[in-house]
């Protein structure tokens, strides 16, 4: 399924399955106040990303311009317009984790090519850092060994 979606993205139109999913999500949010972010979250949860091809349908359903939808998608760090190619580890690089040595930890990972290490600013576990999140699972008190084990686990 993920394979198909990756291929679809390179075409100008999305597959019927993706269209149907987007229509279903749009229908589920009909009549809500300020529905755009919830819609984008749901699309991303269902497909792993927000396909370019979804923009016209969203714009029409909400009676806003495609530019506005694009503007919102591109504003927020969370929304991706392409599927992730590698498993993602979100590593907190904010001040408290810096104070607990995350930069040295991250520097040891520069050659990592099997996972993508994304930066996140704060997971709210600032007294037990360095911290990371994989999917919705949190990991605290990371050191080089623990982080390497996580990389092995998801890669």
């Amino acid at each position, binding site marked *: 399924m993920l394979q198909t979606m990756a291929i679809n993205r390179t075409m100008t139109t999305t597959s019927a399955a993706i269209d149907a999913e987007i229509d279903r999500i749009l229908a589920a949010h009909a009549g809500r106040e300020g529905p755009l972010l919830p819609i984008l*979250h749901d699309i991303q949860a269902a497909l792993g990303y927000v396909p370019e091809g979804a923009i016209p349908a969203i714009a029409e359903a909400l009676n806003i311009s495609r530019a*506005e939808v694009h503007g919102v998608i591109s504003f927020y760090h969370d929304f991706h317009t392409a599927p992730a190619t590698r498993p993602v580890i979100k590593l907190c690089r904010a001040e408290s984790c*810096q104070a607990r040595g995350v930069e040295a930890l991250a520097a040891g990972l520069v050659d990592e090519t099997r996972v993508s290490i994304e930066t996140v600013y704060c997971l709210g576990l600032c007294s*037990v850092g360095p911290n990371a999140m994989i999917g919705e699972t949190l990991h605290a008190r990371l050191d080089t060994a623990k982080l390497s084990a996580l990389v092995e686990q998801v890669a």
Partner: protein
Amino acid sequence: MSVTVRISDDALALACGADAVAAAFAQAGCTVERVSSWGMHWLEPLAEIDGQGFGPLTPADVAAVLAGTSALGIGRIEAHPFIARQQRFTFVRAGKTRPLSLDDYAATGGWAGLARARDLGGEATIAEVTQSGLRGRGGAGFPAGIKWTTVAKAADPRKYIVCNADEGDSATFADRMVMEGDPFMLIEGMAIAGLAVGAQQGYVYIRSEYPHAIAKMQAAARLAAAIIAPFSVEVRVGAGAYVCGEETSLLNSLEGKRGEVRAKPPLPALEGLFGKPTVVNNVLTLAAVPWILAHGASRYAAVGFGRSRGTMPIQIAGNVRHGGLFEVGFGITLGELVMDIGGGTASGRPVRAVQVGGPLGAYHTPEEFHLAFDYETFAAADGLIGHAGLSVFDDTADMSALARFAMSFCAAESCGKCTPCRIGSTRGVEVLDRIRARSGRQVDAVETLPQMHNARKAARSLTDDIGLLEDLCETMKFGSLCALGGFTPYPVLSALRNFPEDFGLPAPAQEAAE
């Protein structure tokens, strides 16, 4: 009868491995209750058996705990100095109740505030909040009662209560702990606010980095729907934009727009969400309200310091031995928090700097440990208490790197609406890179063109670059629309002022502190 073991299901406990410890206790035949966190983070996963605490545990420690031979016992949890020294109003249930149990909530005084507000009516409820002296806990410290009065007086049939749960500051986790540990209290606070100002609809805007808080709040809103009716609460999820913690940008985000900051006026209290009168309050502000209504404004106002009344849930984090949540009346000193309660650094090295108030807060030195925790005292010391997070750094911290980080964070998170923040932060990173390299800057090709009448023709030295950085900070501070651009100069300039040797300048004479 089997032993009852209480273990937190707070995100921090989970991150430290609480689920595996809970499973090990269950396997050993114990009844496991998942409760909120006490806030003693260095001890998580912490297990409580008959009031006695054991932590930090791994599954391998379980057998020894049950056999009574574990060396990880800390004695009675409530007698632990970290807990005993606190004055818990907002976190009164922390560690004691199951977060999503309506029975636990009602049995520990839950809904008493809402019941009293219903008896009092809107006007008297606002009067109570005003008298309590409660100020906005998000950072700005604006009196909650005044904000509520403005919304209450606005003549519009549709009004909103918006709870700002976009807790993005590093070193802060109190909002998360309220939502994960005592979600009904926040919902009760929102319902009281709704009743007070005449709003029917509430939104909780939670950052997407908090999946556990989102799940708990969604469940709690469902469970409490009948109790708070006709008021209703809906959870909305952010999308990874730090700036959405700014109230007007949060409102735009809720409306489904880019999270760009709005110019004020109009105030959100008059034209907020969808142009309607809106109370926007931080989680901790709204969570303090049920206690105030249940126990009376005067009991809340009796605690505190100067114009900062009541308690503040202070979050001690970073390189600190005893990190966690410490709720106490305003007025405690920075040094007590870091050294006595926090126990100094986790690395055992001397404390070099403490950032107070998140990424937009100033870096303070141990010479400033006498400062009392209070909005006005910190403002007078060129700092802020913000959301009351402390990030402790040991003597290995590179302060010019942290100043650069502050600028790069601002560049990454700027909404782009105003120029000082959007452009200034990027220029700030560049200037700081030159300062860190001690490189100065040569005149470039464009500057030497004859048309560039006003461009400087001489090379810039390190001192010139520092002057430029100070100028830039001045522009950002006074020219930015919101606190992101406006307060980024606090960490930058405080690092420069307090640690000039990290910027290639001579170290300050040692008496400079007072």
